[in-house]
């Protein structure tokens, strides 16, 4: 087997995931939150592909493709929302978008 072993891939994946979580939790711009979500999804993809390689099966790769498709759809919706908010001159700050408070 060429290149680094599967544990390395998993380590990178975990690191990316943590970065994503930190981004979602700490940043206030919805654009960045969305971007961080993408990072989390792709870290999961990396783990999928890594395990796929470990077990020599294609299932993980198929799953990664499915996740990419869903992520693309999600970005469409998310970006659409953000563009709509910008066009209504709303402040792009997730802490101030609290209209749904119970």
């Amino acid at each position: 087997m060429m290149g680094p072993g599967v544990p390395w891939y998993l380590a990178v994946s975990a690191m990316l995931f943590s970065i994503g979580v930190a981004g979602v939790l700490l940043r206030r711009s919805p654009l960045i939150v969305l971007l961080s979500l993408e990072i989390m999804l792709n870290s999961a993809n990396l783990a999928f592909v890594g395990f796929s390689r470990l077990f020599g099966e294609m299932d993980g790769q198929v799953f990664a493709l499915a996740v990419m498709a869903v992520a693309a759809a999600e970005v469409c919706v998310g970006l659409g929302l953000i563009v709509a908010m910008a066009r209504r001159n709303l402040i792009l700050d997730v802490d101030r978008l609290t209209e749904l408070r119970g």
Partner: protein
Amino acid sequence: MVFGSWVCLLAPLAGFLAILAAGSRLTRSQAGIVSTGSVFVGFAGAVVAFVDAWGRDADERGELTTAWTWLKAGEFQVGLELLIDPLSLVMMLVVTGVGGLIVLYSVGYMAGDDEERRYFAYMAFFVFSMLLLVQGGNLLVLLVGWGLVGLASYLLIGFHHERASAVAAAKKAFVVNALGDAIMALGFFLAIAKVGSLDFGVVFEAAESGELSDTVVALVALGLLGGAVAKSAQIPFHTWLPDAMEGPTPVSALIHAATMVTAGVYLICRTHPVFEAAPDVQALAAVLGLITLLVAGVVALVQWDLKRVIAYSTMSQIGYMFVGAGVGAYGFAMFHLVTHAFFKALLFLAAGIVIHHLAGEQDIRRMGGLRRALPTTNLTFLIGTLALVGIPPLAGFWSKDAILASALDEGGALGWILYVGGLLGAFLTGLYSLRLYLRVFHGEPAAEPAQAHGHEAHRGEGPRSMTLPVLVLAAGSVVVGLLNIPGVWHPFEDWLEPVAESLVHPSTGEEWLSSALAVGLGGLGALLAWRAFQAGRELVPDGAVRRTLEHKLWFDELYDTVFSRPAQTVAVALRDRFETPVVQGGLDEVAEGTLRGAAATSSAQSGLLRTYALAITISVSILALVFLVVR
């Protein structure tokens, strides 16, 4: 034969559904035509089946046809079966024939009513229910028809739903009938438990073979009798029938003549093997019939409502049929049923013309001298009255006297009591029928009737659709009695013999003796009524007796005190003590608690996106930890 009977059964149902489905797309008169037509198509089907059966040997006239297996539970199964045999054919012809004439009459009678379509749909449905009852090939199908007849009568008695009295009468009829249905169903449950089947043949065989204990047979017979007594308005379940006069007059005619009250007599004749296996119950049927015919006869003497007098006379005549069926003279009981259907329908429809003419007036104190204004009605009503009294050669003469002769032939103490009571009933019949006829058609015309309520005034005898059925029924009342002439021929009796073999065979001498006595007493009653009318006297002088009779022997008051009031008291107490505080209060508290809980929970919704994300992150981390640790 099978085809004809299915046509007979389904045509009125089709008419009912067609009127329902078409709704306001049919004009009112078209609805009447559809309803009348469907019943007459049913009549044609019955005639086809009858002619087919007529051409066969006496033993092959019964046929059981199964549409499909309808209910199945383990060993027990019931099919949707029709039984076509001489007995059900007679009923089919009467129900669709007389019923068809009554529906035709309604076309004229109900013209201009606001809800004619509903009326005609119900009429067709009523005829269908009765046909299902008489054609049912096993006890369960019979019970279904039985219940549907009760429903249809409820709908039609309460047709004028804007009148509180009509609604109360409909409710009363339904409750009393439901009571009878429940008693009958209990009998059926016992039959299922002990015999394991509701097929006529199986149940009858079990009853006849003696493999069931006497108690079981007697209880099943009592169940059947309970249903029959309630449906046929015999004492003690008779109180609904006089009140049922709240329905439109053709409905009264249909209930009294062609459908509904005759069902009890039919049931006893149909299930006669069960009754024969329980002779005490059969004797009870005869005794109840006798009591009813006498009580109804005396109560009819003092009633003032035109339709109520006829209603009591129906109870009285059905009493005769019960006496006949009770002594085992099934052929004669059915014969009286058929002749009674003709002259009672005639009386009601003629009374309907009178009521129409007087713009809804039903009190005979405000009638009189109508023979000049309504000559045809006068004549036909007289024919009906004389047929009811039993004056030869009209229909009632042949059938009523045959029942009396059977009671005489039965002999013994019971037979003699029935015989003497029946003769007394003939006397009473003469009294009340002539009183009614004379009050309405003779004497001086009463003051102009109030035009206040009911139909708008239709002066005269009404349209052809009303007079034609009356004339046909009058002709029928004259001739149907000739189907059975003692000592000469008796095709009617022979026709029913294969299905319900009579237990008594009165000799020709007994028949003629009974006839002479009954006609004599009936004539005497009529004469007394005539004399009293000439002298301007009432038949029953004022006093305690009269008051008791006017209150119908206090039956309504008794039932009110014993059953109705306590039930209402309990219901009110339950409402005040349980329904309002516990059930309603409990629900209110549940609702309030939910609201408070929701208010508390909603404060957790901060609307801050990052709080939610943090909550998710922490939850997932905890779950992952738990997962790892527990593993």
